[in-house]
């Protein structure tokens, strides 16, 4: 598909290096990166643009009108979706918000305290603990999810909210990021000054270090929120009661049924649009005071 998008706009890109006489050298060079980036953006926005338009089409329009022509059925699709099985779709959305919100909050708390401990203190076994926790990153989710299910089933916790929440609380990547942020943001002499003033270690962490770590912790929260919101394998394995499904799993079951009844296609498409809006809105809002670069552990100087 990407090659097609490239081909459509390729003539424009192809002509730019040829325009030798016109603009000065430096401006001419900047055209190639700009156009390449625009092509990349076009490729990435295309499916999103498609779903925005497709969601406005009624069932018959979906197959009869040109794909990028808006339809007339958005309100109807929305009410159909809300009416589907007594509003189970909104239940899924609520579940996803719960899993991702609570899960990311717990995960950020555990990451913050672990990252702080690993960054600030020198103690026997520090690097060993860090390495073992990091090894968790390398563990493929598959080798974890199935035995996690079997073990949780033994504890009567399978097919509960806990079964999707708890396995994701410890995030090795979150601990890693928190350690980097704590090392960069919390100076050792500030901690030492707190001790001089007679503050306990817990007090120093919560009152002094934690506020300093906030920008980094926002990143950990976002990262984990997205990871849980987008997770499919774990709820797919853990849950059988569809009242507890997150949105990813709910949409999947809707699509599975929809493959036999094309009337459900419009519901799937409208549901897919609504499922991506919260995260996109979150990123658009948050990027005003938060930089994407933080996601890869960049520390602002």
């Amino acid at each position, binding site marked *: 598909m990407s090659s097609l998008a490239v081909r459509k706009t390729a003539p424009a890109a192809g002509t730019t290096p040829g325009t030798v006489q016109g603009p000065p050298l430096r401006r001419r060079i900047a055209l190639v990166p700009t156009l390449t980036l625009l092509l990349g953006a076009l490729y990435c926005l295309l499916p*999103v643009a498609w*779903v925005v338009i497709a969601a406005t089409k009624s069932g018959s329009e979906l197959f009869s009108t040109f794909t990028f022509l808006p339809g007339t059925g958005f309100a109807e699709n929305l009410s159909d979706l809300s009416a589907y099985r007594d509003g189970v779709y909104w239940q899924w959305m609520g579940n996803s918000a719960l899993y991702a919100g609570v899960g990311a909050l717990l995960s950020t708390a555990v990451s913050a305290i*672990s990252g702080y401990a690993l960054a600030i203190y020198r103690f026997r076994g520090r690097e060993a603990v860090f390495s073992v926790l990091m090894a968790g990153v390398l563990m493929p989710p598959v080798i*974890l999810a199935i035995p996690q299910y079997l073990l949780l089933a033994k504890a009567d916790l399978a097919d509960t909210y806990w079964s999707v929440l708890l396995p994701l609380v410890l995030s090795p990547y979150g601990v890693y990021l928190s350690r980097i942020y704590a090392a960069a943001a919390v100076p050792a002499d500030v901690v030492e000054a707190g001790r001089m003033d007679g503050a306990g270690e817990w007090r120093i962490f919560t009152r002094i270090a934690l506020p300093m770590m906030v920008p980094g912790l926002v990143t950990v929260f976002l990262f984990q929120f997205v990871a849980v919101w987008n997770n*499919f394998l774990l709820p797919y394995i853990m849950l059988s009661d569809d009242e507890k499904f997150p949105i990813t799993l709910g949409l999947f079951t809707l699509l599975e049924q929809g493959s036999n009844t094309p009337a459900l296609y419009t519901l799937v498409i409208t549901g897919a649009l609504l499922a991506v809006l919260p995260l*996109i809105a*979150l990123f658009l809002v948050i990027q005003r005071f938060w930089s994407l*670069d933080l996601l890869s552990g960049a520390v602002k100087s």
Partner: protein
Amino acid sequence: MTSARRKSYGVKGAPYAFLLPATILFALFFALPIGYAIWLSLHKVQVKGLGLGSGARTEVWAGLENYADALSDSEFLDGALRVLAYGMIVVPVMLGLALVLALMLDSDKVRLAPFTRLAIFLPYAVPGVVAALLWGFLYLPDVSPFFFVLDRLGLPQPDLLDGGGLYVALSNIAVWGGTGFNMIVIYTSLRAIPTEVYEAAKLDGATPLQIALRIKIPMVAPSLVLTFFFSIIATLQVFSEPTTLKPLTNSVSTTWSPLMKVYVDAFGKGDIHGAAAGAVVIALATLVVSFGFLRAANSRNKRDVSQGAAR
């Protein structure tokens, strides 16, 4: 120092107390399941009599029997080959695109960089299931704009949901979803390069392309290695995308990837011991491939460094 000594007990105990939650969670949700999976993979169910009543089904030591079964299962091996082929497309294309786009973002006088950066990153916020679903519809000739255009132009319409086209279709979903995140990782390390490093090259009249190839790419090599490493791990575990495409086409079987096969074994057939062996094999294979790559990359780096030193 003296005050730290005075409270040495609290200071000494604090890191252990602070690491307690992570340690407990690691033990419960990482170490224990892995141990259990390995234990399961080495056992099997023995049925006495008709298999009814308590005690009729007991778990007995199976040695490497489950592993032998998994490794001689042609469906499992075919799945491994399919995923390998898929990974050979996804990882180089995704990271190649991510590198090119990151270099473009980092170049002088580029326009619209904040907008394009956010747009290219956007798919990261789209769940894999939804991404597969969106592209799945775009692959359906009845609703896809591409097929509409091809039709109008009188060009042949490829079948993207069958045969070789399926690999392109699945790879495209992964590339679409993963390029933005990797681009940000590479771009971040590009920006960490001090500008003095290429000032001299610029004065010598090096073109942006030369600067990119000779200076920028070698300097971000560590983050390239890291993105490769994690992409390999993620790619070999592919599950949600083919599972989501399955309702749209008959050519994705329920056992298309080894991971899907493990799922069917565990929950379709109820053979948890065989499934555990399959999961362990996938995990080991993933680690062997990813660490093999890391080792190869490191030894190459070292060789480059020593060559540079010799010069």
